[in-house]
């Protein structure tokens, strides 16, 4: 087990996006261990397996078939076992109402998905670094909100 790495779980139904994210994580200075699942149903199955190491951060695509990011968010937040998980939601839309609703339902991070890869890398670097800082400092999770665009 590597104590110096940030464990990341990513749920996205788009194979290209998963690849983009994986590449973006690889360029971040903080060491990350990335696991990927294809949708919300797979995500919830994965998280409830007893033998896994719970991730530090879960990245959720808001629009997924079978089970949406919002449904996953609510399910995760209703289970006390996952109280230490940081949840980052990303979506191509960013209406103020959407963002606030997502935060109110327990998300910690809202990422407006950029259209180009360079921007995505910058955003991931910021999100991972901020998370790393929180991870190291033991900040109050309830006050942890971050919006990036």
């Amino acid at each position, binding site marked *: 087990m590597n104590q110096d790495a940030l464990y990341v779980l990513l749920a996205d139904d788009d194979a290209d996006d998963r690849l983009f994210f994986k590449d973006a994580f690889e360029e971040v*200075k*903080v060491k990350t261990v990335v696991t990927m699942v294809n949708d919300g149903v797979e995500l919830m199955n994965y998280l409830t397996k007893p033998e896994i190491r719970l991730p530090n951060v879960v990245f959720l695509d808001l629009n997924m078939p079978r089970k949406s990011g919002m449904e996953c968010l609510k399910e995760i937040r*209703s289970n006390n076992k996952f109280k230490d998980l940081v949840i980052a939601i990303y979506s191509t839309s960013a209406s103020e109402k959407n963002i*606030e609703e997502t*935060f*109110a*339902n*327990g998300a910690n991070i*809202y990422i407006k998905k950029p259209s180009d890869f360079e921007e995505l890398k910058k955003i991931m670097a910021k999100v991972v*670094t*901020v998370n*790393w*800082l929180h991870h*190291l*400092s033991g*900040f*109050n999770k*309830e*006050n942890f*909100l*971050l*919006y*990036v*665009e």
Partner: protein
Amino acid sequence: MKLHIKYDINICCKIILQEQLDILEIPYTITGLGEVEIKRAVSIAKYNEFETSLRKYGIEIINDPKNVLTQKIKDAIVEMVYLKDALPMINISAYLAKKLNRSYAHLSATFSEVTFTTIQNFMIVQKIERAKHEINEGRETLTEIAFKLNFSSVAHLSSEFKRITGLTPSAFKRIIRKRKETDLAEKHHVQLTKPNRN
């Protein structure tokens, strides 16, 4: 020909440690399993050399002094930000250098290497954490909070808040309030729908 070998891993490791410390002329005593006491201060360069030489045997130093120093820096900043009602009007670099008895350049380089962020950034993030706490408490105005935390103005606090969190202080407050309402509503809902056992 096949040889069967029996070895004592503890003796192996101890000898490796002794050899490497002798080569680097570091005065030491081996105080127990997996514990070495270094007799006098060792330069960072020599320490790094020692660490590298052990790594090829799969031996790792757990108490990395860089981590220890970084923790001390963080503790000093947290203490400064949270201990008193208002932040002291002092220069952070001079304060840390004096308190930890090292040059600020050294502190700053070590900190960045371990955390991937700067001391200045850590400090501002801590101040924003405290601001969040005060905003949630709701006892003081944003102007008062800005003054207490040594921001030059309320506009400065707001812009730093936005830079760190992506949200304005008022959006932050609204979200936290909404979250509490959602929690309460859910608890209330559970209570109402619970079957009556009587």
